């Protein structure tokens, strides 16, 4: 299986899409920090100078990737994964504390974020594991192994605490789904990730009410019989009413939250009796999922309040926009929407943005870079960026599907999962469709390790694709 690299085998379409994103991204970082004291685009004291160095470094790394034997990615998948885990543990213990989290190493003045590389390593390891001949994804044993492979780095990152990046790992569900994970299980994992986020965002009582409402909807869909729905609702309603009256009349010391839980427990007892009497076994699932979710909510809430130090809780609350200081009125998000909204259809023009310059949202060049695109390039610009991303993602699917090698295909889906998750969640959070969880926009956001990691991740796949004709592991 000797191979020779043929230039025509390299997928230039992907590379061009990548370069479009990189160039446009850098121009926006430049626009954010550009001011009248501009000296040189290599000015290292400015974000754009710094980023430019990282971009050039990444280009060198790309060339190195093509020099490396393509089989090494398969063979070193597990060692790389193991090394990433070690780095993650090390950064939790010895990392530099920035914004109340230990996510960074500072080596020779360069900031390095192991969690960015952990995504790449996890994609490699998943691909290696799933491409094994005897692996059946639907067996419990493989499922547990896969969930561990994704879960362990995510947990360590959650301890830093960088819960936004930890959530990115739920994006691998897309890969697992493509490789045959049952659809309901994929949905369940995404549901838990969402529940996790909303437990942090809301108070537990609100989450529990929402869960009960969901359970009712699930129950209604499952039964489709009016009498079941009315009976179920009536039992719950009756208990709720009685309990409310009792708390008022006997002036019991119960809060809303306890009333709901007691109602739920009492109704469940009645439901169980009815399920037993009328042989309605299929509804047990609804109850099981409901109680499982409530237990999960409590666990997350408990972990948040008992395992995190107050300043770490504060960091997550600030990230989610639950706590703000007076300078940052209600706020990053609103700022971001105003900036994007003020761009209008055509935008204000390159370097003409005022919102993104005047407000100094701290993450202006990192997590909120999309604001600058929105303000200076308008709807035309934002749509174009989304179009290029969609083009890249669909191209990745096309490339993945043409691989003979299972390893290359699965890895391709890993790359796709991570980029898609970052792309969709980052833009959704800057325009108020998703809670602000502080993850960067691939190839755009300022930040050397993230940029390098995304580039390496993508080009390992392009490298694997370039030998698709000969590579069959």
């Amino acid at each position, binding site marked *: 299986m000797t191979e020779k690299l043929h230039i025509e085998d390299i997928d230039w379409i992907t590379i061009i899409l990548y370069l479009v994103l990189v160039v446009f991204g850098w121009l926006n970082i430049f626009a954010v920090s550009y*001011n009248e*004291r501009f000296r040189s685009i290599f000015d290292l004291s400015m974000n754009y100078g710094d980023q430019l160095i990282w971009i050039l470094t990444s280009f060198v790394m790309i060339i190195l990737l093509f020099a490396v034997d393509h089989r090494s990615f398969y063979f070193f998948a597990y060692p790389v994964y193991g090394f990433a885990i070690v780095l993650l543990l090390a950064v939790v213990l010895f990392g530099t504390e920035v914004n109340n989290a230990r996510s960074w190493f500072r080596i020779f003045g360069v900031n390095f974020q192991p969690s960015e590389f952990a995504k790449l390593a996890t994609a490699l390891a998943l691909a290696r594991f799933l491409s094994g001949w005897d692996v059946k994804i639907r067996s419990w044993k493989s499922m547990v192994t896969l969930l561990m492979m994704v879960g362990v780095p995510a947990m360590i990152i959650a301890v830093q605490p960088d819960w936004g990046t930890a959530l990115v790992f739920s994006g691998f569900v*897309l890969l697992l*789904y*493509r*490789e*045959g994970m049952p659809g309901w299980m994929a949905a369940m994992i995404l549901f838990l990730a969402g529940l996790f986020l909303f437990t942090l965002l809301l108070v537990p009582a609100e989450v529990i009410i929402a869960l009960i409402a969901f359970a009712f909807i699930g129950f209604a869909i499952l039964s489709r019989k009016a009498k079941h729905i009315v009976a179920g609702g009536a039992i719950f309603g009756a208990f709720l009413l009685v309990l409310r009256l009792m708390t008022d009349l006997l002036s019991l010391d119960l809060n809303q939250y306890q009333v709901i839980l007691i109602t739920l427990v009492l109704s469940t007892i009645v439901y169980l009796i009815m399920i037993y009497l009328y042989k309605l076994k299929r509804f047990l699932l609804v109850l099981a999922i409901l109680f499982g979710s409530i237990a999960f909510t409590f666990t997350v809430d408990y972990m948040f309040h008992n395992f995190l130090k107050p300043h770490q809780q504060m960091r997550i609350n600030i990230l989610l926009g639950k706590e703000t*200081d*007076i*300078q940052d*009125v*209600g706020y990053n998000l*609103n700022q971001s*929407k*105003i900036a*994007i*909204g*003020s*761009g*209008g*259809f055509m935008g*204000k023009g390159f370097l*003409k943005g*005022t*919102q993104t*310059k*005047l407000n*100094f949202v701290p993450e202006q060049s990192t997590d909120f870079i999309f604001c600058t695109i*929105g303000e200076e390039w*308008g*709807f035309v610009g*934002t*749509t174009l960026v*989304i179009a290029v*991303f*969609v083009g890249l*993602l*669909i191209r990745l*699917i096309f490339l*993945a*599907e043409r691989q003979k090698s299972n390893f290359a295909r699965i890895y391709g889906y890993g790359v*796709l999962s991570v980029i*898609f998750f970052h792309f*969709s969640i980052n*833009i*959704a959070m800057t*325009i*108020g*469709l998703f809670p602000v969880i502080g993850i960067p926009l691939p190839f755009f956001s300022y930040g050397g390790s993230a940029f390098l990691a995304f580039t390496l991740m993508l080009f390992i796949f392009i490298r694997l694709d370039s030998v698709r004709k000969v590579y069959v592991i």
Partner: protein
Amino acid sequence: MDRFATRKNIIVLIILVVSAGLVMRLFYLQVIDTSYKLSAENNSKRIEILYPARGLIYDRNHELLVYNQPVYDLMIAPFELQAFDSTELCEILKIDLERLRSGIQRVRNPRYRREPFIKQISPETYAVLQEKMYKFPGFYVRSRTLRKYNREIAAHLLGYVGEVDEKLIASDNYYVMGDYIGVSGIEGYYEAALRGEKGQEVLLVDVHGRVQGPFQDGRFDRDAVVGRDLECTIDAELQEYGEKLMKTYKGSIVAIEPSTGEILTLISAPTYEPSLLVGRTRTENYIKLEKDTLEPLFNRALMANYPPGSTFKPVHALIGLQEGVISRNSTFSCTQGFYARGVSVGCHVHKSPLNLIEGIQNSCNAYFCNVFRNIIDNPDYNNVTEAYNSWRDYVMAFGFGNSLNADFINELNGFIAPTFYYDHYYGENRWNALTIISLAIGQGEILTTPLQMANLAATIANKGYYYIPHTVRNIAGIDTIENRFTERRVIPVDTANFSIVAEGMDLAVNGGTGSTARIAYISDIKVCGKTGTAQNPQGRDHSVFIAFAPKEEPRIAIAVYVEHGEWGASYAAPIASLMIEKYLKGSVDPGRKWLEATMLSRNLLSEQ
């Protein structure tokens, strides 16, 4: 090839649906919804911080002591700067072009949105400038308030207001660069109540920096909440009178209302005028005061640790009575001192033998050496250490050895030696009552602050309890003070024993021959007092006096320290008696003007 290959279509669909959702939302935000679009092309918004007026401070008779006066800071918003007529601005501000240029250079730091260019410009300049502000885009005026004082008194008690430093900004996100904060005294301790709550206005501004109106109909605006007014416990009249009496001395006066623990007067001399630490000249004046060898910034009332001297004798009497090692009728003889096994403590000439009340009246050193020896050698305890610890527990119950936890930021603890201190010094079990006999006369390893001694006077006046001394009696709007100031602290000594000690302190002032504090006698007020001399290894001893009055239903308890005044009766006692008279009668009786004149004419500062 594999049976899940069709799932790629679902994944493509997910990508397309999500992206379409994002594009639709963006279309709404950027094209349809105009609420995010600002009217003019290059409009931007500006956050104007609204500074609340700081709470006012009144005295106990509701006389206004501290209020606010507006001043104006000229600010620069670096990114809004545009070309302007610099000569005109210089003329208005009366500065030269170079100063303007360097000022602008200095604030061109994009990290901060706005920076002060010239602080506290005069109201006249402001009036001229206000008219022409529109000509200078990027400049604007921020109005602030400074403290102003009706009487130049109580500098240490009121404290002062300074600017926040970077350390504080990092630790408390309420404050931003340039904010003011109470640093010491009431201003410092009650900062949270006094400061109020900053508000903000978010304004739309056009290219020229002109305000176009509220941003999004003022959705993000928030009114400033004015700071809470405080009613402090001091009597301004009395405070001023005390400061006048202390003008030529170093030392301290603390007066407390025994029934509440309210501090009537808190003086540390020499003091300074509170208005010195306000405004543009604050830093300059502060440095000057800091360099003054008389240490006017040092708050002696809370921070000077003196040995209490004979004023501590009542405490020994109370402990001795409570422990049953002496009684009211215990007599000891004094042959001009106390002599035992090589230890000698001298005493002055007075009648002998004496009982307890006479012992206090005459301040007999020998008497209290015997009392102290009985306490430490009490056979009820197994050893000296145990007996000493019991004595120490009593002393600590009076509020010595620890700060009283009053409402000050910088109150010191004083010192009551723990046993290991002596163990370390003499060796374990190698010390006894005689080794530490100087404690009997309030000397040796014992230090107290004037505040603690005034509190002792208040405790004796109350016959067995005190309230933690405090300087604020009401916070407007909350109408209460912290709980600890209204909880009675009871001393584990019977009321009857306090009556005996009070009797002795009565005779010390009002008795006949041998009374040590006759100088404090006031014909129509029964003052109970105790003189003392605080040893001072650096020079002449300090004159100390504690007292309360009237004897029945006391309304004032006081401690006076005059550094280098030597005998309690020579400076501290007359000053205390004048203070008591002033407070209880409103003025000093013409018959006692001579005493006032004498105290005012003496000077212990120039002798230094």
